[in-house]
Each structure stands twice: as structure tokens, then as C-alpha cells.
């Protein structure tokens, strides 16, 4: 049986409050004598016997508890169904209304009976019960209408409401106190429940209510009241787990930088035991966030075992990319590359890093075909560009030129693609295209402007006229890797003057500089780095400056923006070059951070970059997706919308995704 408990200490506190803040404004209720004070009065057992005859044991229990609280020392009759008791059906009817919470009908029935029988006086118990019932209803309505001062004032005037039986009132009072900045008093209300109420569901629900309103430190004082079951498990284990999940999720949404060790451990051991895919993935994303991609990979592999599908594949692929294993990432994402816009983007990112690996991998036809198909489908300039370099590396300058040309069609602002087209066109002796690109880009790209000014121009592998316009996908699709390594000699780019290895130390600084630029043109940035390093030893400031600039560019090409940053400071540079490098470095850093799912750093890099150059549409979209992944959907939506308005296709899918997320978020909010 649930025991009704008067909230002695709490109610005293409420009374103090009532006199302090409410008494002047709130019209006092009609003075009612508390029935407890009238110990001589006969206890009205009508309701009790009525509920007993209805067979409603729950109400019988509640009524016994209520009467015991009102009349200390009163004991319920041994036989509630005894015939010696003759009830008045009118009064029973009133109690019935009361029992159903139909207080207006109960009030009307009392008045009706009084009109019919002027001698009738309702018992003090009945009137008091109705007052309390109505006060409870008013408290609930005030709470629903966010009138928290009223909630507190009703509770102060009606301490009978604050019992384990009507725990909803206690929760509402706790909330009202917390929302009116009387947090410690609200905490007291929760403590009261956990100290006095035995029902396990009520206790658990109390913690859930508290969780939504209090911080961790405040909740800890409630956890101190946790009861341990016979199995040794704490009754609030599930709450602790929820809090642990929240702590990790807060890190991922940028609300905090790391979770407590306890939380991580708790979720770790629970997830290993339950294999709950959501928990496994949460731990995976958290490990990624904390720069532990190998751990992340393990979590996502466990998640995949428990729940194969795009969610697990997504995380696993990011973990693999983070560990520079784009081949595995590409394979895992292959089946999901059209599942969502973000998986398409991730797949293309994996494909691009796979293609750009050094040394170039020889990809199987099936892999290459699906990369090509995905690139064509998404009209993705970046992957097209990488396909271009890939073809170029395997001595297929014509195919390379077609890819670069396609990339520049899809994204006319993409400098790397324009540069690729320049290099291949030059190799193909397509002077007209070289001229066209130089005139179009020289103002914006130092390397395009200076292309061909150092070293000799390499002979072309074959006298082939380049395609004016991109061919349809079918003819573009095949990039046949040749078994010949790109450092070989005799054909293609290999026949350039810098294509055979010469130790940089054996060259003069000026010679190393020329050679480094030549290697850059061959897209061999790692060899170029060493030659630029040699050039940095020059006594000529001009050479050193050029070398620092070149080395920085080479590092950027290698995807090492922080090294690029160091290199750029190894010699004085002109402001124009500094700007150009900064833009390139931060662009690279943003892309790299985004690729591994480090969206906060992607945003940081974009912010840095924006100090040197305005963001074009492709980076704006990257920025928007970063917001999206950080669940900052509103900001994501704003940017997607702005970019989509310029007709930039990539933004439209993002806009739809952000709006869906906003809708879902809105529907989950209470």
C-alpha cells in the first residue's frame, strides 16, 4: 500500500514563502478549519465504503491513506462491506464525482442537495477534499500555462497536495521553483520524493524530470539517495547511462571539449555488453573527436557487426580516412554512396584521397568504374580533378585533360582543375588551351601565371589534339593504369628533364629551385619539397623567398597544411604570396578536417581562410555541411539557402537535409 506522507518540512518552507510573497496579492481562500484539528469529529467514511462496494481497491487504499493522514489514530473498519452502514446515495454520488476528479459536478451536487434539504450540511472532510482536489487541478493548469508563481503559491497553501500519491504535483512544484530561480528548494522537492516515496517507477521518473532541469552537480546530490537492489545494481543505472550519453553527445555538438572519464567508462562497458548500435557509434564518434581514430574504427566495426547499414558504415569510413586508409573507406561506402547527400560527399572524398595517394595505387577496374560513375553522377569537380592527376600519373595525358576539362566545366572557379588542364595541355602541346588558361587565371593564381617560366617545357608524349569539349561519360570512364611507374622514362611526363632522380644536395640552390618547380609541374610534390629545401640554403633572398613559397605549395599539394605553414615562414615572402599561401593552407586544412569528420576544425580553418579571401560557393557548402554535422542546422540552412539562391546545385540537397533536420528537431522538442 502506498502510504500518504505529509510533507512536513517542505510545507513549512512553503508557508514561510507564502506569507513573504503571496499573502498581499493573493486573495486568501475562505478560511477552512483543517480537519486534522477536529480530532473529536466523526470520520466521514462514506467515500471509503462507497469505493469498497465498487470493488475499487486502488481508491480504497488511497482513501484510507487520506483519512489516516487527516485523522491520526483513526483505523479503518474491519469490514468495509458490513451491512450496518446505511449510506446516503446522494452523498455517495458526490464522492463518486470527487473520485473521478469532476469537482464542478460535485460542487453542483452539493448545492442541489442543499436546495432539496436545507438541513443538509456537507462534512468538513468532503469540503476540504474538494478544496484540495480543485487546488491540485488549478496547480496543474497553472503549471501547464507556465504560471510558476501561482504553482508555488498553491503548493504553499495546500501542503496536502505534496504527497507520494500525487507525485505529479511535487514534480510540478519542483519545476516551478527551479524555473523561478529557487533551485535549491526545487532540489529539496526531488529529495523529498527520493527519501519518502518507494514506488520504483516514481523514483525513476523523478530522476528523469530532474535531469531535464538540473546540472550534473545538482543531480549528484539526488544520486546520493539512490537505492541498491538485491542484485547489487543501483536503481538509477539507466539514468547514469543517459547522462553519460549526453556528456559524450555534448562534446560532439561542441558544448564541451571532453567528457568525464567516469562517463566514458560507463558507456564503454555498457556498450560492450549490450552491443547497442547507437551507443557503439556514439563511442566511435567520440573517439574520432578525441583524435583516436584506431579506437573509433574498433567501435564502428562492432557497430557494423551489431547493425550493418549506412550509419555504421559512415562512421567506419571516417575512421579509416582519418587513418589514411582511403581504399578501405571507399570499399565500405560503395554500397551507400547514394544513400544520402552527405554519404555521397563522403564517398567522393574517400575516392579523391584514394586516387591521390603517393605512390599512385593501381586500382582494380571495378573500383575505378564506380569512382568514375559516382563522379559523373555527382558532377564533382574535385574527384574529376583527382581522376585527371591519376590518369596523368599513369601517362595518359589525353584522358587526364578530358577529366580536368570536365572538372573546370563543373566548377569554373576551381583553380587546381584549371592548373591540371594547364599542365596536361602543355604536355599535349595544346598551346591554345595553355594560353587561354593563363589569360583567364594569371591574375588569380601565381603558379598558373608563372607556369612555363622556369625549366624547360617537356616534350609531349604524343601529338594528339585535345578534345575541345568534354566527351560523354562512357568514353571518359576508363582510366587504364599502365604498369609503368610514373618515375619511368621514355614516354609521357617521364621524359621531362627532372624526371630522373638527382640528390638535391648535389645541386646548387638555384638549380634545385628550378628542378623543384619542374617536379611540381610533374605533380611530384614530395620530391619537390626536398629540392625546395636545398634552394632555401641560397644566399639570394629572392631564391629563398621563391623556395619558401614553392615548398609551401608542395606541402599544400601533399595535404600537409601545417608543414606548409612552417615552410611559408622560412623566408620573407611578398604580401601577395603570403595571402595566396594562407588561402591555400587554410583551404587544405578545412578540407582535411572535414574529411575526417573534425567539423569544428574545418570551421576554424574556414574562418582563418576568410581573413585572406572571400569564400566561394564550394567552400560555403563545406561550411554549411560542417554546421550540419555539428547539429547547428539553422546556420547550415541559412548558408545552403543563400548559396542555392545563386543557382549552385550542390547546395540544394544540403538545404533539404538541413530543413529536414530542423523539422525533426522541432518535433522532438516538448
Amino acid at each position: 500500500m502506498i502510504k500518504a506522507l505529509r510533507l512536513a518540512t517542505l510545507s513549512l518552507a512553503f508557508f514561510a514563502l507564502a506569507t513573504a510573497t503571496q499573502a498581499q496579492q493573493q486573495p486568501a481562500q475562505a478560511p477552512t478549519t483543517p480537519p486534522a484539528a477536529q480530532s473529536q469529529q466523526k470520520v466521514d467514511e462514506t467515500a471509503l465504503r462507497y469505493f469498497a462496494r465498487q470493488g475499487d481497491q486502488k481508491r480504497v487504499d488511497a482513501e484510507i491513506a487520506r483519512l489516516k493522514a487527516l485523522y491520526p489514530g483513526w483505523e479503518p473498519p474491519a469490514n468495509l462491506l458490513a451491512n450496518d452502514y446505511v449510506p446516503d446515495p446522494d452523498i455517495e454520488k458526490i464522492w463518486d464525482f470527487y473520485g473521478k476528479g469532476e469537482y464542478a459536478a460535485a460542487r453542483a451536487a452539493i448545492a442541489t442537495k442543499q436546495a432539496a434539504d436545507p438541513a443538509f450540511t456537507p462534512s468538513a472532510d468532503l469540503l476540504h477534499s474538494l478544496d484540495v482536489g480543485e487546488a491540485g487541478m488549478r496547480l496543474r493548469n497553472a503549471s501547464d500555462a507556465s504560471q510558476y508563481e501561482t504553482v508555488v503559491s498553491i503548493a504553499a497553501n495546500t501542503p496536502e497536495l505534496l504527497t507520494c500519491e500525487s507525485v505529479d504535483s511535487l514534480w510540478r512544484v519542483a519545476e516551478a521553483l527551479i524555473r523561478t530561480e529557487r533551485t535549491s528548494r526545487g532540489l529539496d522537492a526531488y529529495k523529498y520524493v527520493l527519501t519518502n516515496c518507494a514506488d520504483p517507477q516514481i523514483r525513476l521518473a523523478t530522476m528523469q524530470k530532474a535531469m531535464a532541469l538540473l546540472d550534473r552537480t545538482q543531480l549528484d546530490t539526488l544520486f546520493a539517495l539512490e537505492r541498491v537492489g538485491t542484485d547489487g545494481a543501483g536503481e538509477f543505472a539507466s539514468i547514469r547511462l543517459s547522462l553519460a550519453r549526453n556528456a559524450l553527445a555534448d562534446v560532439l555538438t561542441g558544448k564541451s571539449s571532453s567528457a568525464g572519464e567516469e562517463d566514458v567508462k560507463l558507456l564503454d562497458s555498457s556498450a560492450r555488453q549490450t552491443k547497442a548500435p547507437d551507443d557503439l557509434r556514439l563511442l566511435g564518434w567520440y573517439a574520432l573527436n578525441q583524435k583516436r581514430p584506431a579506437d573509433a574504427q574498433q567501435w564502428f566495426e562492432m557497430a557494423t557487426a551489431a547493425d550493418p547499414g549506412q550509419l555504421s558504415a559512415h562512421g567506419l569510413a571516417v575512421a579509416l580516412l582519418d587513418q589514411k586508409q582511403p581504399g578501405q573507406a571507399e570499399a565500405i561506402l560503395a554500397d551507400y554512396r547514394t544513400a544520402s547527400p552527405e554519404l555521397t560527399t563522403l564517398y567522393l572524398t574517400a575516392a579523391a584521397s584514394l586516387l591521390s595517394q603517393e605512390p599512385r595505387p593501381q586500382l582494380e577496374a571495378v573500383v575505378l568504374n564506380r569512382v568514375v560513375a559516382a563522379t559523373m553522377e555527382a558532377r564533382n569537380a574535385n574527384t574529376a580533378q583527382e581522376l585527371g592527376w591519376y590518369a596523368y600519373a599513369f601517362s595518359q595525358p589525353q584522358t587526364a585533360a578530358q577529366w580536368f576539362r570536365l572538372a573546370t566545366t563543373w566548377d569554373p572557379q576551381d583553380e587546381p582543375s584549371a592548373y591540371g588542364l594547364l599542365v596536361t595541355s602543355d604536355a599535349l602541346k595544346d598551346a591554345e588551351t595553355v594560353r587561354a588558361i593563363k589569360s583567364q587565371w594569371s591574375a588569380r593564381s601565381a603558379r598558373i601565371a608563372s607556369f612555363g617560366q622556369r625549366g624547360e617545357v617537356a616534350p609531349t608524349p604524343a601529338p594528339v589534339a585535345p578534345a575541345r569539349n568534354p566527351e560523354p561519360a562512357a568514353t571518359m570512364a576508363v582510366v587504364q593504369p599502365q604498369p609503368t611507374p610514373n618515375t619511368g622514362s621514355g614516354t609521357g611526363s617521364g621524359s621531362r628533364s627532372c624526371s630522373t632522380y638527382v640528390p638535391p644536395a648535389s645541386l646548387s640552390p638555384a638549380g634545385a629551385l628550378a628542378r623543384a618547380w619542374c617536379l611540381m609541374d610533374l605533380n611530384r610534390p614530395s620530391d619537390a619539397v626536398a629540392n625546395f629545401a636545398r634552394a632555401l640554403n641560397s644566399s639570394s633572398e629572392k631564391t629563398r623567398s621563391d623556395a619558401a613559397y614553392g615548398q609551401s605549395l608542395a606541402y599544400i599539394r601533399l595535404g600537409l597544411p601545417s608543414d606548409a605553414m612552417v615552410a611559408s615562414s622560412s623566408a620573407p615572402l611578398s604580401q601577395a604570396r603570403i595571402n595566396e599561401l594562407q588561402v591555400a593552407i587554410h583551404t587544405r586544412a578545412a578540407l582535411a578536417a572535414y574529411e575526417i569528420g573534425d567539423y569544428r576544425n574545418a570551421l576554424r580553418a574556414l574562418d582563418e581562410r576568410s581573413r585572406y579571401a572571400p569564400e566561394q560557393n564550394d567552400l560555403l557548402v563545406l561550411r554549411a555541411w560542417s554546421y550540419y554535422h555539428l547539429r547547428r542546422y539553422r546556420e547550415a540552412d541559412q548558408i545552403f539557402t543563400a548559396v542555392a539562391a545563386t543557382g549552385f546545385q550542390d547546395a540544394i540537397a544540403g538545404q533539404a537535409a538541413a530543413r529536414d533536420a530542423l523539422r525533426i528537431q522541432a518535433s522532438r522538442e516538448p
Partner: protein
Amino acid sequence: MALATTILAAAPALGAPTIRPDEWSAYRQNYVTDTGRVVDTANGNISHSESQGYGLLLAYLADDRPTFEAIWSFTRTELMVRPDGLAAWRWEEDKTPHVTDTNNASDGDILIAYALGLAGQAWNDPGKLEAARGIVAALGDDLLVQINGLRVTLPGVEGFAVGHRDDAPVVNPSYWIWETRPVFQQLDPDTDWQSVGEDELKLLSLSANNTAGLPPDWVSLAEDDPRPADGFPPEFGYNNIRVPLYLMRAGAPAEALEPFRAMADDDGLKRIDVTTGEVKEHLTEPGYQLIGAALACVLDGKSVPADASRFAPTSYYAATLQLLALDFLRRERAQCLTEDSR
């Protein structure tokens, strides 16, 4: 001063009920639920503090205490959730929370307090008198403003006072229910409610200084001369058609009623653009007709046609005004009614 004395005499004391059982039963069946909710049938079946207040007043006038108790229980538990002791004005069955606007409307509060005051006295119920006192004191504290030396009641706590809108203060003359002032004076002697009533009557007259000669429903008092408030149609409309009824019930002198001849004709009442005098709509429900007929009888001694005095529940608002008009005629002007309408 003369007016104040007249008003003082006007509070309806409960003798024989002036609303007949058949009329009241029809009203209850159409507009009052078992839970004590009074439903505005012409307004999406919502309830508001005004409908609850009218319900209480009519239940008192019909001497139906059980229904009064039910309506008061609903009003107290569902609407009186504001910390200042006034009622939230809007309640909707199909919304969560049911209270969809926690602002108050002072006509609702005034009607509730008035009915509680009358019933508390008639039925010797100190609880109701205490509740009435609380509401009247809150009205005095939060709603009274002084404009050019005149003290009047604002329509609500939020949205009408200076600082809340550019053309503030904004008032609604139909929220000034003159017959309540003597009762309020007794309940709350700290405020001079009698003189508030007189000031409101003066301002009513000032705000009718326009082409139509009638006060607009919503009046801006931002400048010396009252004018129609911004954002509301500049009309004498559904709100203010109650004003002459309230004046008659309060025993106001003929010269105060005179301007309202313009709002009534044989078809019923008129909604009028106060800036042009143009008639925008004829309101022909029996409840509205009876106001016009009562006015004609009080001013010119014309008998009230039997059709207008027969109670016919149409919309909540017209039916409510019709019962209030019948109550007035039977108490004060029985000679206006035919034998079987009295």
C-alpha cells in the same frame, strides 16, 4: 453626484428570480457544460473569462446555485492561474494547455467579481465574498489609470497601457460595467469605485464626439480628444452594443442614453463606422432587438414587442444580452412588457 446615487440603487438584489426556469434551462442546455464551462458558440466554441462571468451572473439571477457552483469551480480551477489573482482570458478545449492566452480581460474579471459579490451576499457565503474582494482589489491595483484627471479601467494588464503601444492608453467602453461600481465600492472601500464609474461615464461621452455620435469599440486616449485606436476598425460594433444595456441596468439618466437611439431601428441594432456614420451590418437576433426595444421603451415609453422579449437561444452573445435585458425590464420596467413576458 446624482448619477452616483442612481447607480448605487441599481444592484439587483435577489428576490424572485427574474430569469424564468424555462429560459434559464434553454440557456444552460445551449451554452453551459456539466464541467461548468460557458461556451461561446459563435466564436469557435472557446470559453473566456467574459463568458464565465456572464454565466455566473445569469445563474445568480436565475437563482440556480448548483450551476453557479459548477461555473465557479471551472473558472477558479481552469482560468484563475495568474499570480495576480485575475483570470486568464482565453480557454480552448482542443489546445494544450487549454489556456491559450494568459493575459486577462478586465470585463471578464469585473463580471466574475460582481457575480461573486452578489451571490456571496445573497447566499451568505463568505468564501465567495472573499474571492470577489481579491479580484476587485487586483483590478484596482493593476487596471486603473488616470487620464486628464479621469480614472478609468484598462481592458487588460498587458498591451493597453502607456509603453505597451504607441496610441496608449487604449480603452474599451463596453468593459466599464457601471452597475458593478456600488458593489465594488462595498467590497473594496480603499478604492473610490463610485467615482471611477462617474469618470468612465464622462469619458464615454467624450469618445462619442465624432460623425456617428457613438463611441468606437476601441478608443485611444493618447491625445486630448479620444479617437478610434490604431489597428481596430473605427466602429461602434459588437463590443459597444452592450453599452446602452449596461447604462440602463445601472439606472443612468435619459441624457446618457439619448445618443444610442442612433444604433437601433426596427430591424435590430446597427454596426456603424463612427468616422462616416455608415451602417456596416444589421444585427437582427432577438437578443439584439430586445436592447433596441428596451431603449425605445425607456426613452419614449414604447412597448416592447412580444417577439423581442421571447427568449430564443441563437448565439451565446445575443442570448446572454437578451437575458440581461429581460432581467432589467422585469425588475425595473415591467410596464414595458406584455403580461405574459413579465
